């Protein structure tokens, strides 16, 4: 009887898991009891039903009532145990029902520790919530930083302009204001440009309007664009290209404008921290690992070979704590914060551009020869040579092909 009832129970009738468990337990427990009773009857060889053996009556009653009671008791127990076992699930459901973006930090699954499996599920769920919360927070931070960055120059200029309008002003005061306007607007322009670049990275990721580009040209362009800033800071920008090789004759495939603006950002950053009169070194190298495989006569996988761009300055270096987080938007050295010099987006852009092109980026302090101090900071961008085919089909999943940051060549420090 158990086998025939099963299919009709499970699928069409949407019973609760608790009811299903109870029914299943009832059926199997019933079968066990029936087997026991049947066994007793068989062992007894039918004497149980012999009307002449009146002394068996009490036994019949005992077995009958006992079996029935056991069945009912078992089913009740199953119902109760099922309820208890499913309690964590109910809690999770309740928590999920209360969950929302506006109170994500207050929503975590809380319950007593009832068992390893349940506990693990709860912990993993809470960890997932932690990650989502962190994501939300960084986004919130980003937006509040953005609005601060955009609104400040507007507020500064508007307040000052309205104040100046109140009465006749002398030429000196007005020309000071004009100076402010130029400075604040230049900054606002830079910030807006940075945001647009960030937005364009997402757009490129989806549309991939890419073209051939050459690393030499790209670096030349990046250095050229920083000329004015370098002159203002009295810093030399030395571009060092690899000599005597045709390694870079072939093009790579991507968005040259994004990459050169990423390198430009790195150079601008380096210029800001470099002491006057010093040099910012920009260099291009072929990836040494690839050269090695070629030298041993192994045909190198073209897609695996790459280029490394290094931008180094002789500045104070970066605080160790900042090295790991410096590629997040609006992370700046303390000395820079509030100075209104950097936008706090340059390195974030460089990072996203490198990742978009399946490369990696890292910042490191060069140890100085004596005393273990810092001799300056180097930012390394490793980019593989790509061809149009490397990007795969448009709707394809990029995740599998994209190396993580740690896949990039690590420079010993």
């Amino acid at each position: 009887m158990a086998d025939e009832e099963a299919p009709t129970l499970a699928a069409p009738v949407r019973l609760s898991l608790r009811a299903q468990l109870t029914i299943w337990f009832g059926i199997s427990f019933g079968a066990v009891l029936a087997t026991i009773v049947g066994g007793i009857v068989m062992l007894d060889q039918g004497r149980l039903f012999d009307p002449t053996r009146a002394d068996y009556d009490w036994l019949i009653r005992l077995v009958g009532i006992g079996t029935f009671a056991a069945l009912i008791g078992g089913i009740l127990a199953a119902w109760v145990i099922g309820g208890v076992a499913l309690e964590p699930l109910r809690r999770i459901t309740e928590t999920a029902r209360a969950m929302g973006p506006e109170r994500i930090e207050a929503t975590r699954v809380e319950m007593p520790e009832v068992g390893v499996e349940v506990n693990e599920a709860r912990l993993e769920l809470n960890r997932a919530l932690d990650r989502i919360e962190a994501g939300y927070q960084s986004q919130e931070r980003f937006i509040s930083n953005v609005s601060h960055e955009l609104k400040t120059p507007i507020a500064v200029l508007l307040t000052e302009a309205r104040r100046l309008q109140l009465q006749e002003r002398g030429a000196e005061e007005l020309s000071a204001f004009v100076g402010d306007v130029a400075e604040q607007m230049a900054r606002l322009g830079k910030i807006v440009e940075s945001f647009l670049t960030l937005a364009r990275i997402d757009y490129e990721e989806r549309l991939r309007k890419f073209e051939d580009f050459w690393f030499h040209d790209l670096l030349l362009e990046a250095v050229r664009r920083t000329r004015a800033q370098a002159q203002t800071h009295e810093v030399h920008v030395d571009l060092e290209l690899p000599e005597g090789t045709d390694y870079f004759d072939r093009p790579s495939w991507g968005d040259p404008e994004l990459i050169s603006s990423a390198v430009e950002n790195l150079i601008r950053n380096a210029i800001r921290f470099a002491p006057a009169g010093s040099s910012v070194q920009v260099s291009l190298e072929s990836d040494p690992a690839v050269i090695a495989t070629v030298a041993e006569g192994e045909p190198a996988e073209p897609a695996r070979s790459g280029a490394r761009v290094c931008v180094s300055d002789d500045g104070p270096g970066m605080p160790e704590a900042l090295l790991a987080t410096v590629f997040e938007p609006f992370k700046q050295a303390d000395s820079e914060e509030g100075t209104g010099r950097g936008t706090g987006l340059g390195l974030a852009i460089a990072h996203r551009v490198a990742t978009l092109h399946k490369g990696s980026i890292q910042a490191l302090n060069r140890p100085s020869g004596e005393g273990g101090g810092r001799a300056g900071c180097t930012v390394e961008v490793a980019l593989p040579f790509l061809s149009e085919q490397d990007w795969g089909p448009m709707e394809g999943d990029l995740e599998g092909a994209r190396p993580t940051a740690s896949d990039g060549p690590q420079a010993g420090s």
Partner: protein
Amino acid sequence: MKILVVEDNPKMARSIEMTLTESGFEVETVGLVADALARAGQEAYDLFLLDLMLPDGDGIQLCQSLRGSGITSPIMMLTALSGTSRKVAGLDSGADDYLTKPFEVDELVARVRALLRRGGSADSTRLKHGDVEMDLTKRTVQRAGVKVAVTTKEFALLEFLVRNSGETFTRGTITERVWDMSYEPSSNVVDVYISNLRRKLDKPFETKLIHTVVGTGYRFGAADD
């Protein structure tokens, strides 16, 4: 030196006009494609500054029309867009340079001066020296009928050398005039670019065209120049 500025935003137009006037240029401003074409038909300008987005058309088409009507003066595009494809379209349509808005005033003046100095850059779409042929619109190079693949910056270097063949240039002059960069003596950019050009253009051929002038710099041309 007469410049026609085609820009529809009156404040922007006035600002550009004043900047260029104060730098000693004679400037006229129009706001429409139709007006620009009419003015260009009546007067000879030494340079055109075109905004990319205009009320009755776009700068790229205007640029093509100007080139189509035989005008060879340098054309510079002004654009608020910073997308690659747009820039490429600007240059392919026959423009000589572009500037992204917002731009620094001195940057504009410097670029205008550079274009005027280059002068007849657009007077011919082909440049020839011996068996080297350059197509300036398609940006292609051939030597003895064989196509030589060069990058944009290599092309600019070669164009400069071909135009000034026979003259010797220092690394500093090349960096400043070809790529508009400041020259750093410790940088090897010029040497690397020259050696790349040599590998592509000279190596497969008997006659060497790029010569090192010891202690000075580089010279382009057949040896007996």
